[in-house]
């Protein structure tokens, strides 16, 4: 069966929020919302789960911490013990203080880059990737709700169409995939 996708456009984020609430209360699954800026409070309405990016950030940070420690221990202690300012590096722990700033910086570097790259991969917005956006106006001043028939098998396309028209839309677009 061909899948139909509805794109309902709004010109105000509050009206979109009301519309989404209305649809969800009837049991419609909203699959995506496009907006030029983050809409405060939309996540619980359309049933988005909390982001797991924070967990990944922690793991990336831990990776950076370990890499920095292992690396510096090898460069500065094992491979070629350095004597800086009369402080010979006989063991890593002796001069631990000197290594803390670099460890910190590398942790931040790994966490930040890891987060940014994960975010782009997960959202398929790496440079050069095709735009996933249904309408370029959603990057300016319009807001779009996306509804798929495959996710709403309870309703027919006509019912979904009628329900969307009950909300304060300014445009309604349909596509078949």
């Amino acid at each position, binding site marked *: 069966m061909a899948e139909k996708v509805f794109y309902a456009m709004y010109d105000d984020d509050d009206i979109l929020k009301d519309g989404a609430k209305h649809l969800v209360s009837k049991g419609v699954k909203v699959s995506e919302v496009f907006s030029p800026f983050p809409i405060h*409070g939309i996540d619980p309405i359309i049933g988005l789960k909390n982001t797991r990016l*924070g967990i990944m950030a*922690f793991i990336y940070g831990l990776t950076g911490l370990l890499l920095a420690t292992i690396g510096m221990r090898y460069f500065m202690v094992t491979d070629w013990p350095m004597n800086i*300012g009369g*402080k010979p590096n006989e063991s890593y722990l002796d001069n631990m*203080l*000197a290594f*803390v*700033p670099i460890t910190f910086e590398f942790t931040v570097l790994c966490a930040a880059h890891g987060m940014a790259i994960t975010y782009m991969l997960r959202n398929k917005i790496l440079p050069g990737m095709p735009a996933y956006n249904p309408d370029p106006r959603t990057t300016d001043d319009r807001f779009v709700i996306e509804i798929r028939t495959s996710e709403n098998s309870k309703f027919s396309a006509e019912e979904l169409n009628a329900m969307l028209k009950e909300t304060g839309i300014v445009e309604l677009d349909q596509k078949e995939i």
Partner: protein
Amino acid sequence: MEFKIANKAKMLTLILMGLGALCLIIGIISDLGSHHLTQRLLVNGLTNGFYFFALALGALFFLALQYATESGWYASVKRIIEAQAGFLPYGIGLLGLVLLIITLMDGAHIYIWMDPEVVKSDPIVAGKAFYLNKIFFWVRTIAYFGVYYWYFWGFKKRSLLEDKVGGTDLHFTNYKKAAVFLVFFAVFSSTSAWDWLMSVDVHWFSTLFGWYTFAGMWCSAMVVLVLTVLYLKKLGYLPKVNENHIHDIGKWVFATSFLWSYLFFSQYMLIWYANIPEEVTYYVTRTQDFRFVYFFMFIINFAFPMLILMSRDAKRHAGILSFVGLIILAGHWLDVWIMVSAGSMGTNAHIGFIEIGMAVLIAGFFIRILLTNLSKAPLTPVNHPFLDESIHHEI
């Protein structure tokens, strides 16, 4: 809604004060023969006087910060910050009394620069005598106390007045006054830390010391704020304060712990790296004579909040926040205690009945004053211009 102190809380603070006094008396009796008894009592007086004064001053600073930045979220917990800052007169009294006794005893081996014999024989102390002398010390101390109290009094007066008259005039007055207060505070928080705490180690100096002390003060003030809010929430007060506010204060606890740790490390590492004899003495005393306590203090003030409060859910969980909060409070008390006692008593200092007793006694007193202050004004300000924003605060 008006807050009434529960009888249980009254009893508990009395028990705390009683236990503290009992411990203190046991400590004094068992220490009667020692030469160091007076000095030990004064060291603890200075530690606790400064620590609890700083809890109030940290709250006053935080209040001024919110006024100056015109924040909205804090409006529904504003009265708690004010009640905490309301300990300021008592803190001034305590700290002032201890400083006065020390001055009358010519430094009591704590501020050795007050001792005329030392000034004569010690060229370094003599060289600092233009700044560190009794008269100028008291001029500065009175200036700090006076300015802090003056602004506290003004903020409190206008806050209560705002409940009656409303409007935005008082808000803009607060905005201006807070900005000026922050300028005074920026200078005074540093110089007062030099005068009251750094001058214990009179041969040593660090330009970071003021910020370090200030960061510790700020962190412990935030902890007291979050604990008070949680306590009031548990009793069913503050219906307008939701978990988003608690999350925000939790973030302050987390962030200021990091600020403190960052300054601790900056001061420590630079002195360790440069390795100049006149600078490292400070850390040699602490890392050799106080090895365990010093690093234990650093770990509980840094690692605990970092690891436990990192996740979002932990900052919204009353149990975790209270647990970490109490540990941080103890940690920062230890920090101040080491600052004062390591420099003055050296290896003779240890934690015993006197230390614990006096801290518990004054903690009980502090809690009692805090609760009394809370009961004196409506818990939620009525006409704060950002009250509506605060009620709808969501993060």
